[in-house]
């Protein structure tokens, strides 16, 4: 190949691949892709790992990290939940008052409260600001759709679903989504802190 050919290839790489490298949606080393969004999240009511009613509206004013997994998932869910645990550990005492983690099941058939409780304990979850939610399939379906999560049951305890970890801001807008296994805890914490500081700098009404 002539020097002109090589020059053309290099220019194409610089001008085509270059912008993708710096785009907001560039894949992270973790294996999860970060997406920026602005989707309103509707209120929902489920039951938590203790079988107690849980209302999303009760988290108003907090940043909420929502992960969609199921407990018998042999695929990426364990990696997502392990990352979420690292996020929880990485939050300071004051931040824990302003941030809540939610694990929403994609398999309500199996994931009853006692199963979710055992699952949370296995990952060392602090249930003070981390809830594991299940509910009626029809109600769950609305929430999955609201977050853009596709769910397809393949068999008992076997579900195909979008591996989403989402960050919802204090005004219930979905702002960031991580699609894939192992969302980078540092990146998630960075996004959380950006949203917390947004609130501090927001003009008073």
């Amino acid at each position, binding site marked *: 190949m002539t020097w002109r050919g090589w020059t053309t290839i290099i220019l194409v790489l610089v001008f085509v691949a270059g912008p993708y490298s710096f785009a907001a949606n560039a894949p992270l080393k973790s*294996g999860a892709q970060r997406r920026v969004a602005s989707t309103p999240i509707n209120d929902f009511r489920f039951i938590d790992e203790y079988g107690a009613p849980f209302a999303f509206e009760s988290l108003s004013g907090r940043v909420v990290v929502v992960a969609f997994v199921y407990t*018998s998932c*042999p695929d990426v869910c364990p*990696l997502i939940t392990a990352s979420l645990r690292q996020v929880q550990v990485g939050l300071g005492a004051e931040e824990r008052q302003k941030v809540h983690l939610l694990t929403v099941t994609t398999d309500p058939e199996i994931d009853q409260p006692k199963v979710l409780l055992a699952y949370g304990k296995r990952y060392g979850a602090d249930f003070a600001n981390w809830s594991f939610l299940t509910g009626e399939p029809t109600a769950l379906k609305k929430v999955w759709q609201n977050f853009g999560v596709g769910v397809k049951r393949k068999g*008992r*305890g*076997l579900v195909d679903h979008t591996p989403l970890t989402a960050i919802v801001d204090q005004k219930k807008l979905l702002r960031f989504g991580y699609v894939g296994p*192992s969302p980078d805890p540092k990146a998630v914490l960075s996004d959380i802190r950006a949203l917390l500081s947004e609130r501090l700098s927001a003009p008073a009404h």
Partner: protein
Amino acid sequence: MRIGFWPLLVFFMFLVGCGRNERMDTVYAERCLSCHGPGGRGDGALAGMLPVAPPDFRETVQRKSNSQIRRVITEGRGLMPAFEPALRPAEITDMLQMVRFLSREGRDVAWWERFDALVVAHCSIPWETVLGYDDPPETEENK
């Protein structure tokens, strides 16, 4: 009355079928393959992403009893999910047997295969129920 080894073996083969079957392959492919790999050597597609490498069954399973393996399958360990209540007891037994078979890969297979039927027979006995420490059978109420 003395019963020879081979008639006993044939009896067990007749009783429980013989060796690795499609059910075992299916449950393994659906639930284990992504981390443990096709031969149970801990080289599945997701293994590289795990903080701790999945074990090579040839190194670990041989030292464990069926009850110990069953407990890992039902309760989970580390990032491995708990497969109870998602899997039925029969499926858990299939998974257990598959893990046993894979643990013998690369060994003196011909020698071990003489005992496949006995191993399958042993694994097919619900020891937890026989020994009295199994959960009560599933009903509509506790499903």
